[in-house]
């Protein structure tokens, strides 16, 4: 399971809400939490965000995963604010941060990437007048989401190889094999995009690229 949520199939109320409406509500809640900068409001928002999960049919473990991955940072922020400011500010910031990440995660878990990209393309369409290709940007975003498990897999494979050779204690040695693996994956994905006719603008520009293809 990724710390960054992917769509969870379902038919709950949040699944049925259009992506644009969910993003707008998320934005409104974020603005409201900043506007009403009060630790009681923030804690209330956090409680509401946690309660939202079972209400919309999402297992609570999805919320737990977010909290588990974030707690060191949230704790550090809260302690810093408490020591150098006051405990109310520390509590407010921690609760605001967790509430917003939990709500954003709920949006991600209940919205297909395709819906999100369609929304993004619609929002970006006016930018085509100044040369922005919204399709291309949406594809980059999709590939970014797709690459998260690929990066994790590359890291796991390098770590297993490292341990299998009886090595330990120098994790920086994993960086080079992981980067090499990721570059290979990126190159293969680029080739697949062209082969599938998705990145059509690259036609006729492939001479330099093919110099790196193996001669098998």
């Amino acid at each position, binding site marked *: 399971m990724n710390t960054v949520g*992917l*769509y969870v*199939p379902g038919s709950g109320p949040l699944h049925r809400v259009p992506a644009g409406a969910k993003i707008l509500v998320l934005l409104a809640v974020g603005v409201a939490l900043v506007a009403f900068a009060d630790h009681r409001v923030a804690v209330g928002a956090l409680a509401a965000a946690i309660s939202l999960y079972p209400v919309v049919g999402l297992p609570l473990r999805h919320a737990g995963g977010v909290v588990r991955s974030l707690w060191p940072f949230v704790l550090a922020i809260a302690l810093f604010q408490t020591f150098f400011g006051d405990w109310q500010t520390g509590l407010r910031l921690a609760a605001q941060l967790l509430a917003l990440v939990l709500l954003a995660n709920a949006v991600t878990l209940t919205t*297909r*990437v*395709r819906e999100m990209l369609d929304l993004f393309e619609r929002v970006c369409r006016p930018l085509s007048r100044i040369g922005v290709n919204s399709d291309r940007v949406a*594809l980059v975003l*999709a*590939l970014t*989401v*797709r690459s998260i*498990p*690929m990066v994790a*897999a590359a890291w796991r494979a390098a770590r297993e190889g490292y341990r299998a050779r009886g090595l330990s204690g120098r994790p920086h040695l994993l960086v080079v094999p992981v980067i090499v693996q990721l570059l290979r*994956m990126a190159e*293969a*994905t680029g*080739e*697949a*995009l*062209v*082969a*599938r*006719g*998705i990145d*059509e603008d690259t*036609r*006729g520009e*492939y*001479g330099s690229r*093919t*110099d*790196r*293809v*193996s*001669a*098998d």
Partner: protein
Amino acid sequence: MLRLEGVSHSYGDRVALREVTLDLAEHRIGVIGANGSGKSTLARTLNGLVVPDEGRVTLGEWDTRRHARHIRRRVGFVFSDAANQIIMPTVAEDVEVGLRSLKLGRAETARRVDAYLERYGLADHRDHPAHLLSGGQKQLLALASVLATEPQVLVCDEPTTLLDLRNTRMVHRVLEGLEQQVVLFTHDLDLLPGFDRVLVVDGGRVVFDGPPADAVGHYTELMDAR
């Protein structure tokens, strides 16, 4: 029909293909050869992923040098590592993204996605993260994503290399059942009986071109001699 005329290609000083001339008209064509023989380069010339240094590759009136977009829409390509071919986070989205460039409209796109997921046993996984599929399912998804675009020709570059026997057989059954022309580049000689024609590639040349049994015999002798 795919046609190669005097196709040569090099990577720096390393020659991958030497003056290959072929007409690929048969329904099932196999291509075998050792590692480094030029097989993958030959496969990649067929849909314009590699534009040859010399000679030309054509599909009907189109040339991969000038009409790569048209040819890629008609010549589907499946790689050996399906994980690299899967672009979108979920199964259905990956099939759908390949259809976008065809501009079929929402209804037809949705119909094709449903039909191909159903046909390849992936309908129950449509909203699942694609990276969590098994190796065989990933290869089926790669096939479904390419076949949903309904290409005229399917080129497969060692599609079973990373699969176990069960999944290899499953992919074989899929390839056997296809209506379109299949050009299969493979190390798996068991896949070739039943093919109409098998080419043996060595040193960047086609050194044998004939029925599967004879081609496999020739290839085996070639390997034994080394």
